[in-house]
């Protein structure tokens, strides 16, 4: 792609503990083009949230970026001092977290939080900031925004709150938004609404979105490309249609098979779900070679010894020796 908006190269996130160093993210590389939605999918412990936190500079100590680069529009941001990173957050990178309840300050009205954020990052007058806040609320689909702008977070329902959080993430017109499980805490019918909203906003503002989730269904509806993470490593990355319909990595194959689907003949409950034996290894016990090898039905000799890099596999790239 032409200059990517976000480029992550060989990112490594470590946690020093008294029992040794835990590697939570191990050599992850990907890029996001302007206006693109990249889904980062994986199960708990795969390291996807930590990747997002590392990019936006919100890693909780003792966690730290031990190696690799993060480049935003060409410049490195992984080694910036706190103050510089703080200015980038909000202005050039926006964030949406899982729990809308704790993402908003309960003590301030929604309008105040929006205006403050706008004023912090953009050179506008307070009146103009309020105007933008109103426009944003309208854009994210809050009915009667002139009245609602004076309301406190607790006066909004869960779905509406998440819309406010999205407005907050977009108010300084960032180039990139990192959304960490934005729909997980919401009801299914609201999830659908929020997904649509995110897609539309990304398209209309040309904002790139890094959508972190464990829900493949959300990815199918929203993402252009998807990266599958396993045990801190990237297992597969490619266009969303390809990864979902023609996965190349055995883990992705297993994952897609185990997702319950209402397909043809739904309701015949004898349709047993394909399952992957075993469980994702704990970070303290990642096997040598390919991290997936103990559970892989297509394991070879090489997989036990050598850790695979991302190799070309059809339209995707997969970290699997089957494509070596």
């Amino acid at each position, binding site marked *: 792609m032409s200059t990517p908006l976000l480029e992550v190269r060989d990112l490594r996130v470590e946690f020093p503990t008294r029992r040794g160093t835990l590697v939570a993210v191990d050599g992850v590389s990907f890029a996001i083009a302007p206006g693109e939605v990249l889904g980062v999918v994986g*199960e*708990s412990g795969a390291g996807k949230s930590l990747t997002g936190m590392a990019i936006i500079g919100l890693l909780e100590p003792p966690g730290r970026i031990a190696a690799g680069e993060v480049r935003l529009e060409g410049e490195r941001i992984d080694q910036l001092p706190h103050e510089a990173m703080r200015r980038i957050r909000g202005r050039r990178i926006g964030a949406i977290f899982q729990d809308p309840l704790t993402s908003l300050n309960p003590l301030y009205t929604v309008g105040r939080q929006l205006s403050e954020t706008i004023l912090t990052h953009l050179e506008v007058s307070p009146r103009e900031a309020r105007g933008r806040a109103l426009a944003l609320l309208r854009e994210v689909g809050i009915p009667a925004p002139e009245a609602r702008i004076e309301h406190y977070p607790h006066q909004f*329902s*869960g*779905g*509406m709150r998440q819309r406010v959080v999205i407005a907050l993430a977009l108010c300084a017109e960032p180039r990139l938004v990192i959304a960490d499980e934005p729909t997980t805490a919401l*009801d*299914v*019918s*609201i*999830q*659908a*609404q929020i*997904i649509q909203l995110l897609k539309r906003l990304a398209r209309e503002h040309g904002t790139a979105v890094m959508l972190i989730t*464990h*829900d*493949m*269904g*959300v990815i*199918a*509806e929203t993402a252009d490309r998807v990266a599958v993470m396993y045990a801190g490593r990237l297992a597969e990355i490619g266009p*969303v*249609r390809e990864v*979902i*319909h023609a996965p190349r990595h055995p883990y992705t194959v*297993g*994952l897609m*098979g*185990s*997702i*319950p*689907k*209402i*397909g043809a003949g*739904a*309701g*015949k*409950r004898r*349709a*047993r*779900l*394909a*399952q*992957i034996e075993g*469980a*994702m290894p704990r970070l303290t016990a990642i096997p040598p070679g390919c991290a997936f090898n103990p559970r892989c039905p297509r394991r070879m000799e090489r997989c036990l010894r050598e850790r695979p890099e991302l190799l070309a596999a059809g339209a995707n790239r997969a970290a699997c020796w089957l494509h070596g």
Partner: protein
Amino acid sequence: MAEALLRLQDLGRDFDVSRPWLNRVTERLPRQILHAVDGVSFEVRRGETLALVGESGCGKSTVARLIVGLHAPSRGRIEYQGVALDRGEAARRVRRRMQMIFQDPYASLNPRWRVREVVAEPLRVLRLASTEAQIDARVTELLQQVGLAAEDAEKYPHEFSGGQRQRISIARALSGKPEFLVCDEPTSALDVSVQAQILNLMTDLQGRLGLTYLFISHNLAVVSHIADRIGVMYLGRLVEIAAAEEIFARPRHPYTRMLLDAVPDLEMTGKARTPVAGEVPNPLEPPAGCAFHPRCPHASERCRAERPQLAAHGAARVACHAVEEGRL
């Protein structure tokens, strides 16, 4: 058709969520009653899996808790094999045949107890084993039945992953030799691949042990793999109940259709969706008449005034005026 093991008749449960008396008097506020479950009737037949689906606040978890006795009903009746489930001795004895599996694998096991004690508790309470040796043997058998090892009995819950803890919960539920299992969102907190393992395990156990399940979930896709019949709940009421194939092939109630539409489209067929409107209203102030009418594209005057009753319509039972009047 198999006999009905569990029968709910017009079951209701209210919660008084009023502000404290002092606040009510000084601020002149009314009493606030939450009708968590509002006139629900259905039955569960031996050997089947009935799934109860709905979004948060619809009352499905409350129904589960009413059945196992964690709450007492405010009105209506629950019968198990003909025995009324009240506070009496007969009810207590009959309740021994029921067990429950909970949603949160991290909170459903006592963190201070070893797995052996957790699984053995029903054995002791129901006096199904008398000597320590018998208990040991039975615990080992149960752990192996759910896919764990005998050595796991000596460990503590925090040493296990979410999926493994759910297996321990299942082992605990099975140790009471139940015939009826109430499962409250048992896989909602689990990763997708672990969920597949647990669902498969539950299906296997049902076949092997002849269990009957009441499966609570908000996820229609999950339910499509395990349910024989599905009941859809909204704001404390049952709006549709039918065989699983019927629900997926011919959803009748507008809310059922909306729920099905909201399931993300993994096949990416790009199918057209009816617009998803609004949000679940405040359960403390349910709309008059049909609870769904504010969000329903087919609402009429009658829907705003009169509450629909569950009535047979084809192979399903639906509570909807539009369906009854043939408008849908």
